[in-house]
């Protein structure tokens, strides 16, 4: 297990490095720089700007400089938010995004998980069919369709709550629910399939034959074994919720890392771009790593296999 985890850690470092390099060169090689949209800058100003951000050095030198700063945890100064460092901007935005993502993840896992278990218990009966239809509906309403419709209906028509900001707890309800909707559908389906797989195995029959209560069998025998595919999905779910939060943050005007990334992309703010991309990649890799550990605890076979 330890060897497997170390290998994973090594892979993750490579991914971060590759992604950073790729983004760095992609942002530099395409025509147009961060200062092109500024109108009427004199030659001297441009030269000073380039000098300040190290743009006048050879490309490889810039690359080495950037990564040596990165090793010390310094993302450099932002190019469009004058006077702010990328570290500062990220520090302000990350807690908001993390909170949004955390609630959405929690809701989708609780809701989807429960739904999946109920479906597996009442397999092929009314409740199962009803929830599966609901899941198909959830899957068909991605965040960028559901978000505007929810704002239109709840905020503009019914006048309950407001669609902007991230101050009070009531601001958090609509965005998190919108974000969680689609992924709870995925998780419910996943949970249903893996529960059904376990329910058909003979050790469940044995457990019932021993006279264990239904509750005990479901929670200690079925759930423990059915959980690992769902846990494995948490890695991709982080990535999915993160890209969903790009839409949610721009729709509900939440000052999070997603809107920071969008503004960095559209305004060609190279250092901010690198900072946000590396942050997102780090988050996904961290989640995958934690999932590996969790699955190892849940499933001894996985431990032995590696």
């Amino acid at each position, binding site marked *: 297990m330890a060897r497997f985890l170390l290998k994973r850690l090594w892979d993750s470092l490579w991914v971060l490095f590759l992604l950073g390099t790729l983004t760095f060169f*992609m942002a530099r090689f395409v025509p147009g720089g961060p200062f092109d949209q500024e109108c009427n800058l004199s030659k001297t100003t441009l030269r000073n700007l380039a000098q300040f951000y190290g743009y006048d050095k050879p490309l490889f030198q810039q690359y080495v400089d950037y990564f040596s700063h990165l090793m010390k945890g310094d993302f450099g100064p932002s190019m469009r938010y004058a006077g702010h460092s990328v570290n500062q901007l990220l520090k302000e935005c990350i807690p908001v995004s993390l909170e949004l993502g955390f609630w959405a993840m929690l809701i989708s896992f609780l809701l989807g998980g429960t739904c999946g278990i109920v479906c597996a218990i009442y397999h092929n009966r009314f409740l199962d069919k009803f929830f599966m239809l609901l899941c198909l509906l959830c899957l068909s309403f991605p965040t*960028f369709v559901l978000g*505007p419709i929810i704002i239109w209906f709840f905020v*503009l028509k019914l006048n309950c709550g407001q669609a902007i900001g991230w101050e009070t707890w009531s601001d958090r309800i609509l965005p998190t629910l919108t974000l969680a909707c689609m992924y709870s559908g995925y998780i419910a389906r996943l949970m249903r399939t893996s529960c059904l797989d376990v329910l058909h195995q003979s050790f469940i029959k044995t457990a019932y034959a021993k006279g264990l209560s239904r509750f005990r069998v479901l929670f200690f025998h079925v759930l423990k074994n059915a959980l690992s595919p769902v846990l494995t999905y948490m890695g991709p779910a982080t*990535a999915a919720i993160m890209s969903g939060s790009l*839409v949610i943050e721009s729709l509900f005007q939440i000052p999070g890392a997603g809107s920071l990334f969008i503004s960095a992309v559209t305004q060609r703010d190279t250092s901010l771009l690198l900072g946000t991309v590396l942050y997102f990649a780090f988050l996904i890799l961290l989640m995958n790593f934690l999932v590996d550990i969790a699955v190892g605890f849940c499933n001894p076979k996985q431990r032995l296999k590696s």
Partner: protein
Amino acid sequence: MKWHLFILTAIGLVCFLGPLFYSQDYHTQNLLLGAQAPSVQHIFGTDILGRDLLARWMYGGRISILIGLGAGLIAVGIGLGIGSIAGFVGGNVDRCFMRLIDILYPLPFTLLIILIMALTGRHLWMLVVVMGCVKWLTMARIIRNRVMALKASTFVECSYCMGQKPLKIWWKHILPNLISLMLVYGTLLIPNIILEEAFISFLGLGVQPPLSSWGVLILDGARFMEEYPWLLLIPGCFFSLTLCSLNALGDHLRDRLEKTS
């Protein structure tokens, strides 16, 4: 006929044949008309610039469907190639490819697509190619596993014993057995790609005006939903209906063709 197949055929026919019979144009603006609610003349109404929404929806549908099919084909092609090589050759080649897929798997590809689109000028073909090049990972894994299982089966072994060449074995015995697998996972991939395209267009980085796609229409609708809700509700609901039918079709095909896997 199943309901999902019926809806998909109807939407496909309307998108591809509809513009031949429909008198309205997708890019002619009529600022005096402005945004009109659905009526007999404009069945879906008109948008803020007075353009007919049904015409825009049909042309946008063409682009969205073609992007889905194009990128889906590219992804299935790459997945088939790499999965076949890894599974059929085996050994170190297999290990290399599988390791590559393991490393690529957790990359935040949506961010990369957004990045590439924003930096390279938002060409339509670029979107298709990039999306196709990104979505093959799962496909390659599934195909590789199936190829390995097939390679170990008796009829392939017999064919080897009778002196058949490996490439011919792949072509005659392995490829036909992969078709249903490709069909099922290709069908499940297409809604995924259409979703991604609409997502990127929604952020304003995909299909550019005056062209439209379903994502562009939803974005336009979301901007003016307070005054003109039909601009959001009509494209949004039809988009969800399409996704729903595609997903249901994929599930149906999987249950029929690939129940065991």
